[in-house]
């Protein structure tokens, strides 16, 4: 009799403990509520729409490539592949870019010249910030003081000198070239850079950003160093 009572109590307590634990879990980790206001949601929506249109244009390009492959299968598959390779090289910056863009001049600020302060080089942090800012505005190609920026370009401090692709950047003045796909994009980039606060950050370092007007034709040099492939390997000829 006594034992059955204890077993009953045990089962009931097990259920109670389980319910308590679930209640505790629920109270401790409440589902996060969406507290964004309409403007935040709108902003996110516009960001998503932008991504959507970007993806659409990407799909269009890929569709074109597929179409080209289809057309060229009978004629020359090699030509189509060559085309793709060229396009890929262009995308990552191994080919010279000629097209619309803007040129930014980095100069010592007037105050530092008037006060005779020594011109210091640009710091890597500031340069990275500028390049991030430029990339945010959808730049295709960037060249800093003659050094082409590609996906793996290091920007860092080497013995007190700021280097890009392991080559030191000159002290101001030097130029930064930005290539865009269309002239409209270049105009947009110009306006966005003019409006951005990046100029103030340069001013703190006694530097001045002189953003040039959008141009129809600028030339950005290609990346001239060897690319290290970590994972890709060349297939010997005759094999596939």
């Amino acid at each position, binding site marked *: 009799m006594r034992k*059955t*009572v*204890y*077993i*009953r*109590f*045990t*089962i*009931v*307590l*097990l*259920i*109670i*403990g*389980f*319910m*308590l*634990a*679930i*209640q*505790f*879990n*629920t*109270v401790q*980790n*409440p*589902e996060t509520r969406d507290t964004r206001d309409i403007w935040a949601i709108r902003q996110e929506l516009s960001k998503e729409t932008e991504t959507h249109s970007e993806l659409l244009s990407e799909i269009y390009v890929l569709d074109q490539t597929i179409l080209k492959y289809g057309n060229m299968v009978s004629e020359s598959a090699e030509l189509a592949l060559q085309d793709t390779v060229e396009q890929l090289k262009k995308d990552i910056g191994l080919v010279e870019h000629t097209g619309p863009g803007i040129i930014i001049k980095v100069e010592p600020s007037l105050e530092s010249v008037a006060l005779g302060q020594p011109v210091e080089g640009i710091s890597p942090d500031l340069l990275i910030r500028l390049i991030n800012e430029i990339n945010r505005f959808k730049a295709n190609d960037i060249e800093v003081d003659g050094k082409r920026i590609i996906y793996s370009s290091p920007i860092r401090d080497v013995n007190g000198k700021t280097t890009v692709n392991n080559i030191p950047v000159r002290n101001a003045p030097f130029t930064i070239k930005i290539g865009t796909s269309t002239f409209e994009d270049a105009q947009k980039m110009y306006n966005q850079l003019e409006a951005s606060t990046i100029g103030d950050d340069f001013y703190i370092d006694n530097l001045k950003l002189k953003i040039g007007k959008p141009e129809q034709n600028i030339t950005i040099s290609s990346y001239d160093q060897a690319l290290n492939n970590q994972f890709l390997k060349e297939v010997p000829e005759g094999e596939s």
Partner: protein
Amino acid sequence: MWLPLLGLILGISLGLLTEIQIPEIYESYLSIAVLAALDTLFGGIRAHLQHVYDDKVFVSGFFFNIALAAALAFLGVHLGIDLYLAAIFAFGVRLFQNIAVIRRILLTKWSERKN
């Protein structure tokens, strides 16, 4: 004696480890169910100490009380009246009464043993 405690610890750890969460709207149902279960438990302990414990009454009371409390809460939600307050009140009062009786019985037993 230790078996019920073990059950409680096992139940709590089971609940915490499985990390089950219930939607917010069912939270009140669960809390009232917990209260009903506790009420039945203390009622059972009291009955056991008073030697009037009945297995059927205890088990049926446990499930029936939980179901009734949840049903009251459900009805309250749909009628727009906080009926679950009635259940909380009833269970709360009974809980305190039962605990008071248990305390008295235990105190009497303890003083008897001392003498």
